């Protein structure tokens, strides 16, 4: 008796929906083993991770706040990945967006500039993120440079550039030498949805982005081009679709969304520019994109789930002294299982019983 992977005639729609759930299940099982090895009670740890954050209003808002950048970035990444363009540098585009938007906030600080400040910050951040993402895209198209490497390396450039600004020219003179800008003025801040709460306008923007992506991919010829170029490049060329143009386009959209997410994070929950504004949103969004099956609605759900692990991780650290890095372990294992379970969409397991009664004539 042996277990074989057998190709399906047509991709299974059911498995496409169920496979992320199987992956989550397997991840939880692995985590239980890991918690046991760490000497923590697995049931309590799982409760702290997945149940406790859902039981109070503050944590629920915080999940939505954390999910906002994850979803926005992941939507952009999913367009790239569908088109077979591998943008790994969303973290850098996020930081550059935050820097560019903050420039307006810093320069208008203390002046009585009007309501144009926030919209201008959002537009500039999106533009800067897009331009930053175009560097690897153009290197790819013109010189054949691997966009995986170049986009990833540009993350560190952006990170150090931000660090330089807040330690040097943009440092708050009244900030006791901490590497941070001054708190942004109210006109340079993303408004809250509920007075005294945490939920802000950025979450609404994220929902609009999800809806726009769903329409783009499902209803428009441009979305179709993106999908064909990734799924069957030669057929796409036969269809008259220009792969290079689509690499440029998807990188630009994805950079713009990451940059937008960056400024919303800085002008929203954080309130000023400082190092460490992102706990790795740009990288976690890669997991969100795949867990959501590169589908806008799936990404929305996956973004909320990954946000839950961030909040749960913090709570587990406080309540049970489980290191915060375990959250990253969790996310890594999850991505591994998601990609593994994807093979079940095109293949299925089958037990086979070859008739092995007679030994081979040779040897």
């Amino acid at each position, binding site marked *: 008796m042996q277990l074989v992977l*057998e190709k399906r005639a*047509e991709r299974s729609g059911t498995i496409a929906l169920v496979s992320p759930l199987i992956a989550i299940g397997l991840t939880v099982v692995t985590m239980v083993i890991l918690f046991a090895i760490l000497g923590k009670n697995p049931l309590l740890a799982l409760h702290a991770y997945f149940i406790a954050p859902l039981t109070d209003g503050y944590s629920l808002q915080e999940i939505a706040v954390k999910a906002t950048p994850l979803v926005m970035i992941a939507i952009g990444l999913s367009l790239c990945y569908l088109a077979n363009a591998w943008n790994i540098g969303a973290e850098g585009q996020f930081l550059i967006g935050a820097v560019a938007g903050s420039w307006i906030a810093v320069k208008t600080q203390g002046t009585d500039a009007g309501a144009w400040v926030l919209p201008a910050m959002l537009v500039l951040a999106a533009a800067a993120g897009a331009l930053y993402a175009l560097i690897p895209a153009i290197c790819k198209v013109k010189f054949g440079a691997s966009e995986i490497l170049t986009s990833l390396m540009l993350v560190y450039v952006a990170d150090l550039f931000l660090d330089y600004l807040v330690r040097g020219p943009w440092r708050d003179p009244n900030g006791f030498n901490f590497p941070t800008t001054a708190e942004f003025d109210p006109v340079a801040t993303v408004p809250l949805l509920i007075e005294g709460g945490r939920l802000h306008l950025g979450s609404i923007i994220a929902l609009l982005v999800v809806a726009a992506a769903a329409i783009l991919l499902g209803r428009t010829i441009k979305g*179709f081009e993106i999908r064909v170029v990734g799924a069957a490049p*030669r*057929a796409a060329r036969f269809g008259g679709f220009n792969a290079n143009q689509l690499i440029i386009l998807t990188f630009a959209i994805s950079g713009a969304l990451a940059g937008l997410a960056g400024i919303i994070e800085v002008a929203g929950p954080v309130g000023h520019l400082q190092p460490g504004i992102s706990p790795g949103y740009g990288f976690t969004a890669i997991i969100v994109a795949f867990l959501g099956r590169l589908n806008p609605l799936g990404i929305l759900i996956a973004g909320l789930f990954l946000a839950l692990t961030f909040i749960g991780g913090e709570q587990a650290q406080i309540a049970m002294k489980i290191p915060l890095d375990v959250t990253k372990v969790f996310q890594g294992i999850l991505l591994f299982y998601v990609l593994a379970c994807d093979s079940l969409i095109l293949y299925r397991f089958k037990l086979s019983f070859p008739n092995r009664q007679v030994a081979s004539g*040779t040897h």
Partner: protein
Amino acid sequence: MLDSTPDGLNSGESPLLRTIGLTKRYGDFLANDSIDIDIWPGEIHALLGENGAGKSTLVKAIYGLIQPSAGEIRWQGRRILLSGPSEARGLGIGMVFQHFSLFDNLTVAENVALGLDGRESFKDMSARLEQVSEAYGLPLDPKREVWQLSVGERQRIEIVRALMQDPKFLILDEPTAVLTPKEADQLFVVLERLKAEGRAILYISHKLEEVKRLCDTATILRGGRKVETCNPRRETAASLARMMVGGEIKEVKAASGRTTTVPRLVVNDLSLAPSEPHGVRLEHISFELKGGEILGIAGVAGNGQEELFAALSGERSSKDPGTVVIEGIAAGHLSITQRRRLGAAFVPEERLGHGTAPRMKLSENALLTGHAASGMVHRGFINTAATLKTVDRATETFDVRKAKRDPEAASLSGGNLQKFIVGREILRNPAVLVVSQPTWGVDAGAAAVIRQALLDLATAGAAVLVTSQDLDELAEITDRIAVMFHGKLSAPLATREATRENLGLLMGGSSLEPKEVAHAIGA
């Protein structure tokens, strides 16, 4: 040694290889349904059947590439279970595949060495390679790199590699599909010689005349089952075809008195450097194709047909607009979408991955080429109803059989997918249709439908360019035939006057003597 009779062949009453109730199941699909076949020493045994009849599955099981789900294989009377091809080779079973597994940048000898299981030194092996290739009249220079060789020479490597293992039983999968008529004749001489040495040959083909000429026995498969084992010399090509297809094949009828009109596709001195290493350079190609006319391009694969298709379709555009003229408009510099808007339509050779995106629905594949015109896109938004309507119309007009209304392209059989692709283009009423290998790997029923559609399109006034390796097909539907060789295109011959001999000469790179006349093909 090769020139002595391999021992154990004349063991009298039991066949060399026998399958009993051999069955192979893929999921719910029975690729082979309890097949019994006997192969005797010293016979050339044809395995006939349409694509999808189960020929490849059967020989893969015999060669140990797949394990049967039920039934048994006996070798010289003993039951065997093969866990892989090297075990099959150990017994004396050799195979020459239709698609070669050769490394372009390695020499002939290096390629042969990679495919052998033995432990002899490279030098000994090279010497033996030369010896074997000479002994069988299959000349090969062991030091040449494969990319420099013609397709026929590449096939020789595969055959010599198989012969170096001194097989008692050799399987050949559609060996003449890639050969010129002359090269095929040379191959038949080699096969007759192997037979005389007492070796058995299983010869997979769907060329009936060839089988009648060469084979002693024929086993016909249809839909995974054995239909008949017979002596092909006592059958007619028509009776063999009936057994393969399971019914009469609809004959293609050309409407008589097609009239040609204005030139719709003109190619002027088109030259194009290859886009990839070892590609073929197109050199000074010129022809003119009028409405109502079908021009065939014959030639052995790999002589620039793919490059010509890319240049005509606009997948590769040229700097000089005048090289390709569609409907009187210089189009050499235009993209494929712009050429479609001028009224051109294209059907590439490869169905999955080129003509269609395999994992996308038929409606999306209708959009793939239909977006250029025909109201499928409005202000950037897709009109799903229009794409589905194209699927329905193609299904109805060209009898596309599928499990549901809008399945993925990859789930259709080759013939049905090809009918969909041809239908998709014809429904756009093109002025010019460029089609490559329209019936390659397609069952006879679907092939007849497709050829008829091409004829009808020409009758309706379109210009049709058909590239094919199948001379019978070109004889059946074209008005003129030109031959492609090393990136050059010969002057077209009128199909009525073209003979198999002079087309064969052109396919081999010779030029024609002006006075050559022989019996016309297809007559």
